């Protein structure tokens, strides 16, 4: 009682430069400008030179795969943290986008870039339409429905032997060249990343975040939550369908493995690792997880064991995610103060 030991606590303060550069008008010096732009430029430039420094064809392919997963992960993060819908439908979006693009290219002979664009829009429309019934609801229904659709479609294709059946659709056109393929993917990912970051701060993004917080209050303000959710699901599924469409042209083949569960699970894992709610985090998570999963191929079936261990470790030790942690360290400093 009454022991007057020195009491200290760790204080967390925003860096002065962060406070100064928060206001747009305060950008007076190169130092402040670079404080804001360097992290973004590192990401953009780093991504752009990535194809140039890859050692082999194999790793060049990995970049494209990273980009596809990144699109899915950003779309998952967007839906989960700005809309309140947990989507397990990565495989669904990939499959729908991929098959549409394959059919357009194979049957109608459209060139890849056209079929990708068309299948992104049409695929997103289809996805939104079939998901529409569960949009007014809260809870697990959306997750379950998005999980079931890919299983349903895969079995349908298998049983009815349509769209190539179990063999898939072979002999699709590939991208005009490997540089076009990789830079197309990278530009798409960067475009969607910064576009989504912008979007969630617009009025539309504001409504979506309100829907996540309290959908009844949004309804009471005279807005249809189904309409707004449909818009958001359209955007998110467009990203997934784009990924799927690119995937079939990269592999020049579309099969029922497009509906594999990997496409649903890995983006979620990447979001957890990268830091959910940041939109950049999922991209970072994919940059880490996809190459790791490639490296672990050497271990055969043990791959999944290592993979799971990494994930569990992350959740237990750094459940906030890399990006959240990094942002805090970048923007704030800590010091001990006497109370």
């Amino acid at each position, binding site marked *: 009682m009454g022991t007057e030991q020195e009491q200290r606590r*760790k204080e*967390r303060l925003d860096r002065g430069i962060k406070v100064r550069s928060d206001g747009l008008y305060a950008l007076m010096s190169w130092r402040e400008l670079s404080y804001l732009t360097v992290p973004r430029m590192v990401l953009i430039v780093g991504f752009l030179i990535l194809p140039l420094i890859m050692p082999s064809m194999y790793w060049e392919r990995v970049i494209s795969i990273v980009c596809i997963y990144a699109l899915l992960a950003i779309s998952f993060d967007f839906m989960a943290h700005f809309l309140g819908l947990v989507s397990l439908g990565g495989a669904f979006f990939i499959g729908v986008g991929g098959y549409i693009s394959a059919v357009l290219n194979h049957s109608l002979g459209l060139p890849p870039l056209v079929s990708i664009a068309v299948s992104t829009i049409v695929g997103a429309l289809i996805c939104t339409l079939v998901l529409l019934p569960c949009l007014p609801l809260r809870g697990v229904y959306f997750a379950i429905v998005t999980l079931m659709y890919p299983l349903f479609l895969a079995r349908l294709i298998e049983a009815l032997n349509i769209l190539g059946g179990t063999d898939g659709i072979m002999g699709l056109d590939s991208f005009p060249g490997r540089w076009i393929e990789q830079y197309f993917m990278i530009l798409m990912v960067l475009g969607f990343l910064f576009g989504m970051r912008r979007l969630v701060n617009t009025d539309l993004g504001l409504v979506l975040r309100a829907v996540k917080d309290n959908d009844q209050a949004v309804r009471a303000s005279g807005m249809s939550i189904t309409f707004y959710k449909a818009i958001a699901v359209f955007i998110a599924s467009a990203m997934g369908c784009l990924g799927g469409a690119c995937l079939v042209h990269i592999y020049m083949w579309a099969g029922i493995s497009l509906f594999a569960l990997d496409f649903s699970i890995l983006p979620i894992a990447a979001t957890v690792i990268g830091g959910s709610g940041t939109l950049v985090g999922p991209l970072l998570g994919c940059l880490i997880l996809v190459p790791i999963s490639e490296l672990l191929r050497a271990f055969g079936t043990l791959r999944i064991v290592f993979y799971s261990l990494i994930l569990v470790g992350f959740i237990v030790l750094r*459940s906030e995610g890399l990006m959240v942690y990094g942002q805090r360290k970048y923007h704030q400093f800590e010091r001990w103060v006497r109370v």
Partner: protein
Amino acid sequence: MLEATGLMVFYENMLALNNVSLQCGDNEIVGVFGANSAGKSTLMYTLSGIMEDIRKKEDMAGGERITVLGRIRYLGEDITNLKPSSRARKGIVLCPERRRIFSESTVMENLRIGAYLATPAQTRETLDYVFKVFPALQTLRKRIGGFLSGGEQQMLAIARALMAQPRLLLLDEPLMGLSPLIQAMLVRATSEIRREKSISIIVTEQYARPVLPIVDYAFILENGAAVLEGGREELLSNPDVRSAYFGV
């Protein structure tokens, strides 16, 4: 019975409790009065240990850093670092703000969850007692918690806390949003519980008047600091307090 010294709670860099010291004797009712954001709930969370839990979760999620300083002694023992569950086992039971009843369980189920720490004999006995103090609950036994009215929910929340066999009951804003009639009933019940169960009670409230008649000693919080304390008469005679908290 309970003695807290120099409690300081920081939410990140915001000071929520500033060097608050508070005592509660055996079989006493202590009032803590203050406006919104004065630190009443923070105080209750700190005393019941819930703050430890919140701190840990925020830490895991990389959220706010919560710092708790100061010492809490209870029955001659230092409980500053005890988990909320161990504090509840020792008899410090919180009846949280906004009731927090299990809204999808029935009244009876709510009470049985509350009685987790009690022996079967204690459970039976306390159940009878609770229905004696709050006869309304008896008829609502099968009702789902979420469908009860505000007053009924508050009765249920207090009853649930009693089922945990408290020796020190922490009531956080028990009168919030209730009609004067129900308020008077709850205040009467609180004083009855203190007398018949011979337990200590710490009660927080924004508006002191309804609770004041049953309070032995009171503290007034302002911006996280205990600016005034004293017995009932002492506070009543202070003109500032009279106008600010008693509305007379």
